[in-house]
């Protein structure tokens, strides 16, 4: 491309300070996290949103609001130590049952995880209401199917989950490293029943076992 230098002069990217302002404006205007790709798409040609973000993040360190990473996206959120000022904004979250909380934790720490694996860990069948509730809250979603007989669906946590719990990524889950080091995230089949999970997923009447509430 011989005309590249020319093009550059035509669409010169704004200075970094201006780019930082733009990222600031976009993130302030949105309640949802915005991806770097989205930022770049909305900013003028030649901008580098990722770099502008680094500057912006530094600028807000220690302030009343912070620039936080949520998975692949970015958002501005109030500093957690100021939560006490926000009684007016506090939203009453639906009270999650103990089963739902445990199921959510298992999905987060073991993802992608099948329903059979969740049941194996909890030792009880997972009620359909529990998974429905988590899907509806958009804290979990379907992941890739497992390449085992029966090709069961898997569950993974969503960006909204990360946002809700202030996690940059699923790797930042509390205690994740320790749990992994202790082997507690391994899938370890019952001795003598290596293929138990797969059999379970494959079985014709799998549906039934979820129909009955524990």
């Amino acid at each position, binding site marked *: 491309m011989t005309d590249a230098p020319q093009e550059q002069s035509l669409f010169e990217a704004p200075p970094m300070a201006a780019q930082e302002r733009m990222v600031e404006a976009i993130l302030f205007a949105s309640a949802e996290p915005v991806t770097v790709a989205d930022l770049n798409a909305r900013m003028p040609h030649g901008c580098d949103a990722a770099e502008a973000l680094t500057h912006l993040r530094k600028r807000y360190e220690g302030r009343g609001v912070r620039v936080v990473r949520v998975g692949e996206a970015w958002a501005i959120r109030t500093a957690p130590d100021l939560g006490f000022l926000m009684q007016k904004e506090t939203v009453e979250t639906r009270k999650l049952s103990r089963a739902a909380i445990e199921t959510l*934790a298992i999905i987060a720490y073991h993802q992608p995880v099948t329903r059979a694996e969740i049941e194996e860990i909890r030792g009880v069948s997972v009620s359909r209401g529990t998974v429905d509730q988590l899907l509806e809250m958009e804290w979990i979603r379907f992941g890739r199917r497992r390449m085992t007989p029966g090709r069961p669906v898997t569950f993974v946590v969503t960006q909204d989950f990360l946002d809700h*719990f202030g996690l940059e990524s699923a790797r930042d889950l509390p205690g994740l490293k320790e749990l992994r080091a202790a082997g507690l995230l391994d899938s370890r089949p019952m001795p003598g029943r290596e293929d138990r999970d797969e059999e379970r997923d494959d079985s014709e009447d799998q549906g039934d076992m979820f129909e009955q509430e524990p």
Partner: protein
Amino acid sequence: MSEQPDLPGVEARLAAEALIVDVDGFEGPLDLLLMLSRTQKVDLRRISVLQLAQQYLAFVEKAKELRLELAADYLVMAAWLAFLKSRLLLPPDPTEQGPSGEELAAHLAFQLERLQAMRDAAAQLMARDQRGRDFFARGLPEDVMRVRHVRYTATLLDLMQAYARIRTRDDFRPYVMDRDAVYTMEEALERMRGLVGYAGDWTDLASYLPEGWQVDPVRRRSATAAHFAATLELAKRGAIELRQGDTFAPIQIRRKET
């Protein structure tokens, strides 16, 4: 189990009953085992599975004594633990296939430790700062120029529900249009245009119906409707006049003199 319980026995029994009354509070046998394991007051990694199995079996015994209905999975676990107990107590039989008692016990200990770990992790997760409680998103997101273009959206749940809806329709029948019995207005118009020229006087509209469309009720209905629509169109253009003597009387048409 004795008829005359001594004093400490009463206490133990009350404790056991309290436990049993609570059976609804347990989320399955693994949860119960985890609770029982706490009475050993040791690290889960050093738990005596044999002792735990005995505690569980005693619990099930008590429940039977009190004529409490236990869910099937509790009984399945009891049977399995009884089997495990015998494996752990008896010297290993070299001819026996399958995993040893120690392997099974180790797996049970692993399951308990893993469940406990997940509970702790869940508690840690819920103890984190949460959006909408400890930190907050923008309360007043800006939308400068709204209603620019419509973006249609749907959730995965919508998609799945739609599919489920289609697949559960019992009155499902493919829609097929019966084109054989349909006479279109365009066809009628084409036909009428040629015919009205011949008719100098009032003629019944019914007499214009083409051959093969006068008898079968379905075809007749379609052809009549098409021809009626066509006469209205021709009347509008000023090509013909039409009249009807009375309600439901035959409709008559004639060429308009120009």
